[in-house]
């Protein structure tokens, strides 16, 4: 299992509250996305980050936001929100609105914010992993000190192109951190049924990439580990691979309505006990940084904020049909008409 280092909280009270608020914001935002889906305001494929919040919070608080590069697959709302992307634009994209991050052309799976270093938002399992390495390649080519966070799932870890990429990352010394978000399921297929060796962290070893397995359910521990690794990669200009043990509390996607096909309610109950939000709240209560009342007040405040985001996104218009050909190319149109 993941290392369970003693939490020697080196974090200030303000930091703890920030992490708590960020995790709560993601939780409520994602729950609202589920509402949008159920109400028919979001369609297609949508994948929420509920249960995995500590992971993204730990990593995205360890980089230089707007300077470093970040890329992930289709479970991508949290990464954008943590980088500072306008949450109304993220919600509007989920709803396919003109005010969305991609003007309604991408949807939930394709959130981008290049100005903040966020390069997607990709839908083919493992397909974006070489692209992330390419961002790191650009840093190496230019000799700048950017670090790339390249998130992928446990399912993606089996894709051929991921192994190709790890080889080249090792070969060319790319400053790229491959972060396997191991939530134990490749869609509905449990880790032990999809990976010959379930210790995915070992997959860096054949390519001479430093690798380790970490706990992703404790925000403070995650942040500490992430900061250590980000600093090492920035310093050494070499790749790193981490397997983060986490668990998605919800289904694979919004259309995954029968989780009991691949896991039991008892297993889920046990996982819910490891809820990273409750864990941090308990910790802050113990340190007397928070009271039960303030916990509730913060929760309500964030829920209201998310409600306003939802309403603002929902009030925004759909794209105009005249926009359909826009931005296929930077300088031309394809042949038009049916």
């Amino acid at each position, binding site marked *: 299992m993941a290392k369970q280092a003693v939490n020697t909280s080196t974090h200030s009270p303000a930091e703890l509250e920030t992490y708590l608020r960020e995790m709560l914001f993601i939780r409520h935002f994602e729950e609202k996305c589920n509402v949008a889906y159920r109400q028919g305001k979001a369609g297609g494929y949508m994948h929420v980050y509920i249960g995995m919040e500590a992971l993204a919070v730990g990593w995205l608080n360890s980089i230089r936001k707007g300077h470093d590069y970040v890329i992930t697959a289709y479970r991508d709302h949290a990464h954008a929100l943590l980088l500072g992307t306008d949450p109304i634009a993220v919600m509007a994209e989920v709803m396919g609105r003109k005010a969305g991050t991609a003007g309604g052309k991408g949807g939930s799976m394709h959130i981008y914010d290049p100005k903040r270093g966020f390069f997607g938002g990709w839908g083919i399992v493992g397909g974006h992993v070489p692209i992330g390495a390419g961002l790191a390649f*650009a840093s190496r080519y230019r000799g700048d000190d950017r670090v790339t966070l390249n998130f992928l799932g446990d399912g993606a870890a089996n894709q051929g192109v991921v192994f190709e990429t790890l080889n080249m990352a090792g070969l060319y010394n790319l400053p790229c951190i491959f972060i396997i978000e191991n939530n134990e399921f490749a869609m509905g297929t449990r880790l032990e049924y999809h990976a010959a060796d379930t210790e995915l962290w070992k997959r860096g070893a054949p390519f001479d990439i430093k690798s380790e397995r970490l706990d992703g359910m404790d925000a403070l521990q995650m942040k500490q580990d992430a900061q250590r690794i980000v600093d090492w990669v920035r310093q050494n200009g070499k790749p790193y691979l981490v397997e983060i043990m986490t668990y998605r509390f919800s289904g694979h996607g919004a259309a995954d309505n029968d989780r009991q096909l691949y896991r039991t309610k008892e297993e889920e109950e046990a996982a819910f006990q490891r809820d990273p939000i409750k864990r941090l709240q308990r910790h802050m209560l113990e340190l007397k940084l928070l009271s039960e009342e303030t916990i509730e007040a913060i929760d309500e405040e964030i829920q209201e904020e998310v409600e306003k985001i939802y309403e603002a996104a929902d009030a925004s218009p759909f794209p105009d049909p005249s926009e359909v050909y826009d931005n296929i190319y930077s300088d031309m149109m394809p042949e038009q008409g049916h």
Partner: protein
Amino acid sequence: MPTTMEMTYREALQKSMIEEMDRNADVFLMGEDIGRYEGTFKVTKGLFPKYGHRRVIDTPITEAGFSGIATGAAMAGLRPIVEFMTMSFSFLALDQIINHTAKVHYMTNGEVKCPIVFRGPGGAAKQLSAQHSHSMEGWYAHVPGLKVVCPATPADIYGMLRTAIRDDNPVIIYENPGLYGVKGQVPDDPDYTIPFGKAQILREGTDISLVGYSRMTQVNLVAAELLEKEGISAEVVDVRSLLPLDTETIYASVKKTHRAVVVYEDWRSGGFGAEIAARIAEDCFDHLDAPVTRVGGLNVPMPYARVLELQCIPDEHDVLAAVHKLS
């Protein structure tokens, strides 16, 4: 008028790459055996000693992986030129090129550009048989988000490669291996570019339009010579660029000659020539004195024996036969 120099297609291609690499430090090359080994078709000969391993990058034999890395580098603002040892190997990278590279600009609603060139020899060379002889330009030209060009002459590869490198969108350059040794006059101008989407008339005629691209344009020029001896005046339309496609020039020729034969090396069924033929039929119907005809490669996995291979690839006699059927 700029002066011209005689050189081969291969030399013109290399000259264009060198001039752009000298002009812009963000331009670099990636591919299998392109550096120390100088490239399988020797297109990159001399570049590794000149630019070093930073800008002439030998890759592992992992087409999907390095196409993806180049795509990411392009998204971060660099201008990669990716060489496929043969375009048949780009099958391994189709998910990257079609489902990633070609989607970047649209999925970001124009926020991210992807200035990348994928180039390499495509089509039959000589007895490379079934797995190394594919014409895939039509596969790529099917994809919104890509530009696809198939230059037929040294001057065109010189000017169109430069246009591709300076383009902010992904460009596929299809180089038929049979063209590398072809000689021609090339402008001596390091800023010579040829805009995409402009077909050219390489030989004027009045009786029939021979429409083709890449090496088939050379075949059409030979066919036109032979037809002239028979008293048939053939116009040779070199399409040059499949996506964007210059239908205006093609249609103008067809409206003049009232007959068209579309020639392409790819499998006859479903190749890009079928698209050109369909457009002519759709838009020039009233001007046609005969059905639009296609001459394509035989629908066969490319065989090894030279006699069988030559049977599969269209040549001037196949073009003549098609023309005779229409007359």
